[in-house]
């Protein structure tokens, strides 16, 4: 399968898409946010430098989740009152798109879910229970956050958001769900907590002295 390639409309650098259905990417050289249309790439904005962070994960880090290998292709960084966290966009080896969230050294993998009738943010409180896909989830944290930056390839357009609300839910046996209120329509992601060691990550970031 050939990887579609194009040139950045702003600086001319070569852009390679690792994932055929990527909608948006960031030019590493000029930090332009590029959206893919049928014909070509369109610059829609510019992303500021991401805050320095100590995450060991970087773009093109590889790992294994439930016996399927994946590659990290993109990232969204959010900030909230206790700091920042990252949602890493990963591409599974069967072509599926998933999210590896990294917050306070806790990791979770989740997948987008097309469950209808998701609740509005104002109506949800801590302790509420929902049942999706036959699993029960309880609301654990409501986090008002704001978008800080993007990196790499994303499966949708996402940039220059201001304040977004995330509602985290926990289920039994490490199950995890997130209601994402970035868009007018809420989005649901279902997944589970994972241990850093279990992901068997390779090609991690190199730290000076380590």
């Amino acid at each position: 399968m050939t990887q579609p390639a194009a040139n950045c409309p702003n600086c001319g650098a070569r852009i390679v898409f690792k994932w055929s259905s990527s909608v948006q990417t960031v030019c590493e050289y000029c930090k332009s946010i590029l959206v893919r249309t049928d014909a070509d790439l369109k610059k829609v904005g510019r992303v500021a430098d991401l805050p320095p962070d100590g995450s060991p994960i970087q773009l093109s880090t590889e790992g294994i989740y439930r016996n399927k290998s994946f590659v990290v292709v993109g990232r969204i960084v959010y900030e909230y009152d206790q700091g920042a966290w990252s949602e890493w966009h990963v591409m599974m080896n069967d072509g599926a798109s998933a999210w590896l969230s990294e917050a306070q050294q806790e990791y979770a993998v989740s997948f987008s879910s097309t469950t209808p009738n998701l609740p509005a943010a104002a109506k949800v409180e801590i302790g509420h229970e929902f049942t999706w896909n036959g699993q029960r989830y309880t609301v654990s944290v409501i986090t008002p956050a704001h978008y800080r930056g993007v990196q790499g390839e994303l499966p949708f357009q996402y940039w220059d958001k201001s304040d977004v609300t995330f509602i985290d839910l926990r289920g039994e046996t490490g199950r995890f769900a997130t209601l994402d209120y970035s868009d007018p329509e809420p989005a649901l992601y279902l997944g589970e907590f994972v241990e850093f060691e279990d992901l068997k990550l390779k090609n991690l970031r190199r730290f000076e002295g380590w």
Partner: protein
Amino acid sequence: MSAGKPPLSGGPPRPQVKALQCPKCGAAIVLRTFGQAETVACGSCRAILDAKDPNLAILQQFEIETSDIRPLIPLGTRGKLHGTDYEVIGFERRHATVEGIPYPWHEYVLFNPYKGFRYLSEYNGHWNDITICKDLPSVEGGFSAGSGSAANWVGETYKHFQTTEANTDFVLGEFPWRVRVGERATVTDYVHPPRVLSSEKTDKEVTWSIGEYMYGREIWDAFRLPGSPPEAEGVYENQPSPLTTNVQGIWMAFAAFAVFLLAMMIGFDLLAKKEAVFQQTYHWERAKTAGESSFVTDNFELKGHPSTVELKTWAAVSNQWMYLNYALINQDTGQAWDFGREVSYYQGYDSDGSWSEGSRDDTVVIPSVPPGQYYLRIEPEVDPAVSAISYSVQLTRDVPVLGIYGIALLALLVPPLLVSLRWYTFERSRWSESDHPPVQISGLTASSEDDD
């Protein structure tokens, strides 16, 4: 396609150790945690700075009484724990006050950019390797200060050991939380040696951590420190019992031996022939034995393998005594077994009722007598008050000696008793430092629930 490769100037910078200057005193500040530290303490001027602020805003200034507080593991040292290298990046001293006496201990913050943070604690030469719990424990039996009598975590039950208030006295290096000198937290420890489950409660949050005991030697080896670790004093709350033997195991071995011993006892009793070899009743009269009182019996034969020979004496004594000098003599080899036995029996009445002392018969077992032709030489001595008395002598061959089993049982009992005693004193020593000290033998206080 562009010719050459433009520099990757826009991506996030490759994480580097940051060298900065303290805004108060200008001393060098090194940040080694790639942006993950919240605070950093200046080693020169005792200012606590905001590590997330590029200008290192001053959060707190503290004073210390002595300038002598130094970490045993210098900051910047790397050591291998559980197969991963960690660097010591922070150090603090805290204390708790018990009955007016401050007890200080030290904590070290360890860092690995891929594995995150880990902590070491040190108290009186006892070390613990500590990580934050991801799963929360459940607490049972709540009492004071929100702590319970036990806590359950990952399938194990931990017993409440102590609830105290920890005060931070001194900090050095980087911390992944906003540390302040003088901050207080209620710390509750639950133990299941070699582990300890700790909850730390401030008015803002509760954090649970799990610690595993480590010996000073292991720390020195892991961090390749020179010299020797400080001696461990006393028994620490989660210090594993040094007994390499399982107390239960040794008692089970004892039980097995005891059963075996019992089987042997029954077996040998069944095998013993207990052959009656000689029996005779005599009538002693003082008048008749005025000259030589000793006499010999007729010959009798002992057949079979060398064995015990039991000699039973019976005499019709009533508030009298009789003493018999015996010699069992082998007719052919001239070998003899020589001994004396006393038979005495007294009885009477007094204010408490009737009493008696002694017995009319006596038994002795002669060991390892080989087969052959034998006779007995008997020389009686009789209480002067007696003028005549009847007595009988009976010999039985190959009788089992039960007393030997008793001695063997005692010998087998000593090691498990010693092991249990050692275990008991060790555990007593452990719990004497807790909120639930063992009952004082002098009877001063029963187990109390001192809140410190």
